[in-house]
């Protein structure tokens, strides 16, 4: 509780105590906590002196503002037309089988969440995906395995 209070205070200090700061503050919470809890929303409303309903309304509007717990790495695979034509379904199948989860789910170790998203602006190099903020393009199933492997190695250097 105190942690959330402190975090929101710091973010509001950085982005301002008005509505104008709302989106950057919510983005900042996602960067730190991976999602915006109800508790955090109430705290933001209090700190900016706006209604909790407004915070909730804004937080739930944007697809990158997660409002449920998510993995440390959110994988967003582009499902729009150019990537579809270049085989995004193979990429999703590979991700699902390696991570052993379905689209929309989070791995048991809390490391990965899998999502579909719309055009990422990498259409000439499809299929494409984002892992948190980092884009990966011209994907193949092999490349996907390598990317996941590299992340796991980074997270569990011992194994």
């Amino acid at each position, binding site marked *: 509780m105190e942690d959330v209070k402190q975090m929101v205070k710091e973010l509001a200090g950085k982005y301002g105590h008005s509505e104008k700061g709302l989106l950057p503050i919510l983005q900042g919470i996602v960067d730190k906590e991976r999602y915006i809890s109800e508790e955090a929303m109430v705290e933001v409303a209090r700190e900016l002196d706006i209604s909790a309903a407004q915070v909730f309304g804004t937080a739930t509007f*944007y697809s990158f*503002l997660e409002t449920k717990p998510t993995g440390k790495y959110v994988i967003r695979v582009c499902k729009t037309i150019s990537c579809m034509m270049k085989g995004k379904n193979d990429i999703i199948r590979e991700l699902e089988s390696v991570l052993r989860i379905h689209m929309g789910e989070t791995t048991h170790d809390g490391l990965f969440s899998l999502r579909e998203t719309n055009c990422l602006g990498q259409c000439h*190099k499809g299929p494409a995906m984002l892992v948190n903020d980092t884009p990966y393009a011209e994907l193949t199933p092999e490349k996907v395995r390598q990317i996941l492997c590299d992340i796991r190695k980074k997270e569990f250097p011992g194994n």
Partner: protein
Amino acid sequence: MASKKLKRLDLVFKDEQDTEAILKKTFSRPESDIINDLISSGLKGRGGAGFPTGLKWKLTADTKGDEKYVICNADEGEPGTFKDREILSKVPHKVLAGMAVCGRVIGSRKGFIYLRGEYKFLIPDLEREIERFHQLLEKLGCGFRVEIFTGSGAYICGEESALFESMEGKRGEPRNKPPFPVTHGYNGKPTVINNVETLAHTYSIFKYGPEKFRDLGVQDSRGSKVFSVSGDTPVPGIYELEFGMTLQKFVDDFGDGDTKAVQVGGASGFCVPRKKFEKTIIGYQGKLTGESLPTGGSMMIFNSSRSMYNVLHNYLDFFVEESCGQCTPCRVGTQQLLLGIEAVKKGEKPSSYLDKLLELAESMRITAKCGLGQSVANSFASIVENFKEEMIY
């Protein structure tokens, strides 16, 4: 390898590092001269709507206001578009210079780049560039400052009034128009909002004068345009070409020899079948022979192996997800169109049902509140009418 029949241009991406000289020269001119140059260059907005840029700056300059804003629209969410990302990575100084001159002309000290969340990885480089640019402005005695505002995954926030709402901490729901941004934009203040590419073009116009720009293209569609080419093409990528080419010429250069249709302008644009390539001209709607198509620059090529039903299904799925849900024609209409084509495909509805759906799409064009809902009919009608059999069987 594509034959090089269409002339490749290099106005936008030429790496000209003479921002200081250009700004010095431009700042020393009367504001009205700068506006007149932009107007006579014929530059129109490259974000899709094609509003004359010089006129937009003039209207905002003429509006009185204690505070005004310059906003660069880098939300680039239209499927098949990726040129603004490239411009911001390769020649950000041109975009920044365009913003600063706009600030001078309209009387604004504050600019924002609204960057889509998907492009967050560009921020470190962009911030370094902005920092360098601020130092240059300081040296020139100009108080204009630019800040990045990041979006969070919502296509609708590319619509200018939804973008302002988003910056004000609200849901990205478009406003009623009028009033327009030139009088009531961000914070309710007079605002110029321009696409990334539009701003980059102003740099060339300041540097070379309006004639060089005007000499390119055709009547009503002047200058060069950066196209994002994807789909069934051996050479996907970003190309700067002259306005006014026929789609046939484009396909000769970029197709794979088996092109059956090109989607011009993304999901909210038009699908053109092979038989219309010859008489379709790429440019803004104007007095051209044949049909001319405006475009934010998205060119998606489909060869004969593609099911146009799947293409339309993908677009409708996109619209259902990205509709802000604020007005009924669009919120319900997009869903009904999607369910409707699925029902026809499965044989649950007769093929005549497509005519009902076409009527629905047309009524959305008239009744939807913003460009998203209004333009669903573009791809819907052009795909359904030209590829009816594929919708049914």
